């Protein structure tokens, strides 16, 4: 629903926009870090792509304080992304991945009064991927580079009709890398074949000449909040993969915890089952196991997802409110676990 809306908005915007910007492929490839997002010519406005910039969506996205996200990709002319297995698409040098974050005035009318706060770019340059965070001005007319990050006060009417106010954190360049890292190199996280495969998105990209390889996942990830897309266990694992595994994997920033939450992790101690805290400190909130099968209230994985207190809350970045619906899903998964 949200997805369809995002797509619709994007294309409406395109149609109604006055002179369309032109993507500056040379700028994407250069070493420059332009102060103005507009210099790239990737977007008409925060949520509207320029010609040649393609919207995409993920089956199960990363939660970011209920922000609505608009994702786009731009590939250099004549180049294709390559699908090998279920993991990340292999994007050619010259690719730009674009993600805008915003809040509608009222979540019950998500298509109206969208305030875009920031747009993050991941640029694939000859030297590797570069992450650049841009912050929009209050009018939404211009976005400027903020490598040191920024906090912004945001309010919206939530889906329950209550007004929510948060201190929204635009990550700094190091924090971008804090998640977008594999080994020592910056890498995209979201566009994995398993998380893009909804039955038609990858095929459409292939048809448009933007994708080679197998346009289908062996084990696609379900939509975390759509029960008809997969079992509780599969949806829980999809949520953990999308929200935790960029750090919690064998080569990620949280490898030393020994808690690995990626889609392919076997259901063993390193998934958290019967796993005692390593260096969690007060993050264990007095509980002995990350996951105690059958007992979500005694599982600190759940407690850390539910907490909003720095030093306890997980993920450490990008979340200042509890994702109650996800806590419910993970709790159900653990409750049903033998």
């Amino acid at each position, binding site marked *: 629903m949200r997805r369809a809306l995002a797509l619709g908005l994007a294309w409406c915007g395109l149609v109604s926009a006055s002179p369309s910007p032109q993507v500056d492929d040379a700028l994407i490839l250069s070493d420059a870090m332009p102060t103005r997002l507009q210099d790239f010519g990737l977007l008409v406005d925060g949520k509207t792509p320029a010609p040649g910039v393609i919207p995409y969506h993920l089956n199960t996205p990363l939660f970011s304080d209920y922000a609505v996200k608009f994702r786009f990709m731009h590939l250099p002319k004549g180049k294709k992304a390559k699908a090998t297995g279920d993991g990340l698409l292999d994007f050619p040098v010259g690719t730009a991945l674009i993600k805008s974050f915003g809040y509608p005035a009222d979540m019950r009318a998500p298509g109206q009064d969208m305030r875009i706060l920031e747009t993050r770019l991941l640029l694939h340059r000859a030297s590797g991927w570069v992450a650049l965070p841009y912050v929009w001005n209050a009018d939404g007319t211009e976005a400027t580079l903020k490598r040191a990050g920024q906090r912004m006060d945001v309010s919206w009417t939530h889906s329950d009709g209550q007004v929510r106010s948060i201190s929204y*954190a635009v990550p700094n360049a190091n924090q971008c*890398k*804090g998640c977008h890292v594999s080994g020592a190199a910056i890498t995209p996280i979201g566009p994995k074949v398993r998380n893009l495969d909804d039955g038609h998105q990858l095929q459409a990209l292939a048809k448009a000449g933007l994708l080679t390889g197998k346009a289908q996942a062996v084990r696609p990830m379900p939509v975390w909040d759509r029960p008809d897309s997969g079992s509780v266990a599969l949806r829980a694992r999809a949520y953990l993969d999308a929200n935790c595994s960029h750090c919690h994997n064998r080569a990620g920033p949280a490898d*030393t915890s*020994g808690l690995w939450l990626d889609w392919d992790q076997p259901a063993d*101690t390193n998934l958290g089952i019967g796993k005692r805290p390593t260096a969690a400190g*007060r993050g264990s909130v007095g509980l*002995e196991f990350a996951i105690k099968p059958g007992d979500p209230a005694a599982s600190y994985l759940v407690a850390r997802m539910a907490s909003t207190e720095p030093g306890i809350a997980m993920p450490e*970045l990008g979340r200042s409110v509890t994702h109650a619906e996800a806590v419910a899903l993970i709790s159900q998964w653990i409750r049903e676990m033998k």
Partner: protein
Amino acid sequence: MQAAVIAAMAAAHVQAGTLRVEPGDGAQERLQAALIEAKPGDIVDIGAGRFDLTDGLSLDVNGVTVKGAGPAATILSFKGQKAAGEGLLVTSDDVVLRDFAVEDSRGDGIKSKGADRIVYRNVRVEWTGGPKEANGSYGLYPVESTDVLIDGAVVKGASDAGIYVGQSKNIIVRNSTAMYNVAGIEIENSYSADVHSNLAMHNTGGILVFDLPNLPQQGGHAIRVFSNRVEQNDTPNFAPKGNIVASVPTGTGVMVMANRDVHVFSNIIGENGTTNVMVVAYQSAFTDKNYDPSARNIVVRDNQHGRAGWAPAFPGGAALAAALGGLFPSVMWDGVGGAAANVQLKDPVMTVSLNLPAQGTPITQAQPAAYVAPATAPAKDLPTIVMTAAMEAATK
């Protein structure tokens, strides 16, 4: 473009390679910008005063020195921190951190991960409200790094370990002070460390050498603990339950768990209510087939002992002490592994084995008896740990 960025962050270059940051408005953004814009070889020079920070800081540039005006003068306060798992996070190599303080971070104080050849010199991390469960976990937290030098640090109030080195190789912790933490200094899942000339006082446990299962690096070994003062570790354990240090009895001097080749010598250890030196196996159940839970090839020698054992703070401790004539021993081994574990306890004080038959046996089944030395050859001395010349120079 570069000039614009630097102007935007308002951190003036006072000389080539130095980015100076003063306290005041926008400290968070200005300090973080300097840490992002610094180039290898640069010094981020933090002025005297108090910096009230709202988010964690991070450094990801190799070869940068972050320097303050002294641990009493340059204070990075995280009392108002809204996010992040630590005060300062370092993820690059060849970094020097010196002469500043981190106070009241909500998670860890200073963490460095995958940061090889890092130097912590004359830094202070403190939770200013005294020991509390709500304090952050680790004061100094280098992890997954090769060549770690901690010199002249002070850490107070950590709800886990004051100075914690985890899953690292080639480590020196020296001339440092750890007080009012649960664990004063802890070396965990690490290889080759010298812990010497430190003061560990008023913690729950003074100096710990641990190894845990299910982690990328395990099999801790080759650790020397020497010439430290480990006294009056008497702060009641305030670690959140579930963490391994929550099992450390209040009043523990030095505790060695599930490591091999650990030598504890020439320390002054005393006034520890449970015991001065404890050598034990990992006690919980585990599934990791690659994990060895016992302590083996351990040497305890030439330590100067003060009083110990008058208040053994673990379940069954009082009964054990009564059975042993009133005092718990100054040096205690759980006996797991028997003579083959080659645990050599040579201090001329009351030394007891609990004679537990196997890992995981509850302490209530202890059959304490005077320790009997194994019929093995004296252990060879472990090599002295050496840092690079550049790292040593950075401590001057």
